[in-house]
């Protein structure tokens, strides 16, 4: 098993490498001159050239790539033009804001979707089942930005129950528990949007996983042994239905973070997605590169976790131990 995990991790290295080349190439193609925004507009051509040389932009692109890679491996992603601070600092300041939101959504989504999925499967084709099927369809089909705007319009503008946007009130100096409450209050609407959109696929997967299991012979055996329906469903069936969910868990992580890109800019949530959009609009190369790598590695790790989780949970998965 350890061998399998190591092998999978080794497989990741060339993939990360190729992705980094692609991303570097794409970002470097970006038109727009970040030096301009950093320098005095009256700077002479020589001063501009000196700035370019200082930043290493006068070198051929492959040399730039190698230098960037060398620094990145050491954890140094350069300085952000937009925030005038090291990229690491910028990211570490906002990542927790995204993280808090995502963790809440993650927990809510799983807590809600698993029981719904089980009930829908057990009572297949019942009214409950069709209701949740339609509900998940709604979640898949609703553009998250539109849904977010509708909630803002309804609950913040008309009913004034929740703040329109932000993570804390402007100029707020609350601490401790009051701060938690304040952030929580701001989080309600974005959390609802994100939870509903991830609920959809989770409910579908749980339901289908349960259905697959419920049709198997050993469930019939368990029933014919005279076990109660509760034991059959929760002890025998559900444990096996968990397997596909483990995979989904891995896929959900990167999805949440990138889904937050749009939502954070609507709710002005000071997280990583909003920084990403700002970085792109302002042509902040270093920040763009670092964030793209962050999202890619997150996606890869999610897939890896899914595979490993799958192999760990399901003894039937034959791991190739060569």
């Amino acid at each position, binding site marked *: 098993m350890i061998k399998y995990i190591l092998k999978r991790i080794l497989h990741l290295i060339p993939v990360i490498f190729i992705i980094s080349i692609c991303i570097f190439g*794409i970002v470097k193609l970006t038109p727009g001159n970040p030096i301009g925004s950093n320098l005095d507009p009256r700077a002479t051509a020589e001063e501009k050239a000196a700035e370019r040389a200082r930043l290493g932009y006068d070198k051929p692109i492959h040399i730039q790539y190698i230098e960037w890679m060398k620094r990145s491996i050491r954890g140094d992603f350069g300085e952000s033009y937009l925030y005038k601070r090291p990229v690491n600092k910028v990211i570490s300041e906002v990542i927790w804001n995204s993280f808090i939101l995502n963790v809440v959504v993650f927990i809510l989504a799983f807590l809600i979707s698993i029981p719904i999925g089980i009930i829908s499967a057990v009572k297949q084709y019942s009214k409950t089942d069709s209701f949740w099927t339609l509900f998940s369809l709604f979640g898949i089909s609703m*553009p998250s930005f539109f849904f977010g705007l509708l909630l803002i*319009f309804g609950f913040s503008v008309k009913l004034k129950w929740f703040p329109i946007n932000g993570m804390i009130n402007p100029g707020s100096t609350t601490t401790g528990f009051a701060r938690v409450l304040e952030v929580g209050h701001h989080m309600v609407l974005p959390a609802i949007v994100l939870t509903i959109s991830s609920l959809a696929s989770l409910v579908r997967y749980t339901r289908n996983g349960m259905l697959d299991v419920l049709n198997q012979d050993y469930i019939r055996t368990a029933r014919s042994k005279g076990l109660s329906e509760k034991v059959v469903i929760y002890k025998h069936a559900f444990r096996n239905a968990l397997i596909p969910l483990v995979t989904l868990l891995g896929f959900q992580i990167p999805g949440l973070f990138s889904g937050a890109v749009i939502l954070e800019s609507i709710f002005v949530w000071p997280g990583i997605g909003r920084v990403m959009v700002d970085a792109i609009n302002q042509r902040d190369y270093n920040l763009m590169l670092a964030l793209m790598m962050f999202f890619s590695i997150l996606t890869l790790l999610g897939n890896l976790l899914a595979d490993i989780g799958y192999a760990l949970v399901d003894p039937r998965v034959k791991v190739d131990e060569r």
Partner: protein
Amino acid sequence: MQEDQKINQTQVIGPWKMTWIHFKKKKTAVAGLIIFAILVLGSTFAPFLTPYSLETIDKTARNQPPSWEHWLGTDNLGRDYFTRILYGGRVSLKVGLFAVIISIVLGVIIGGIAGYYGGWVDNVLMRFTEIVMSFPFLPLAITISAVVGAEMPGEYKMYITMFIIGLLSWPGLARIIRGQILSLREQEFMLAATALGLSDRRKIFRHLIPNTLGYVIVYATLGMASAILSESSLSFLGLGVVPPTPTWGNLVLNARDTHILTTRPWLWIPPGLCIFLAVISINLIGDGLRDAVDPKSHR
């Protein structure tokens, strides 16, 4: 003799008809088809449905609320908003359709070749597919769009958006097609094709791919739904199709202005609803098709 033929004729139902019969049974799928048809017809026949053209600017009637002359009011330049939504639908649906066509062509070719040849070809292509799959879609799409689109005139942004979505969303289909072809190529009819001395190309595209058509069609419908969603998200961020070309996504963008968000909901709710209706109707059609195409699901 003649009677025999008659009986045969009534019993034989082609695969298309069969699919339609099963599709018709599902009310939600038919409802989806009707909603989708209305949206498509509405945007196709936009010039006949509204007296205004896309460019008509009426400076005397700016920022009007909905009225009999302007069903959904006018925008800050005095353009009829209902007209913009109809024409916006053209762009949104077109982008969705062509993005999905690009991804299907790529998915079918790559999946087909990988599945048929196997060995190192398969290995290389599938590694490549995995890499494309592990790109984070939205961050990458907005970056590419910002990079490639920055120096493009506005009217070409539509095509860039199509390509970005198409080029990033084929891996799922490629994997399905490959898996199908791996099992199909071992069947007897392929042995017959080989015995007839058919070329590889003919075998792949005339004999193997048509057998996966069911999957392709289902994938195409569901893929179009997500392509429309992606386009609207990109346009909403200002990184997809940009004004003056209207799309449902960039019409919702009006709501970024707090004043419009709070006081003129008719400017952003209708285009948002159109996106929702288009996506949900296509998803309903896709679900219906999946059940209709898949013989296992017929109860």
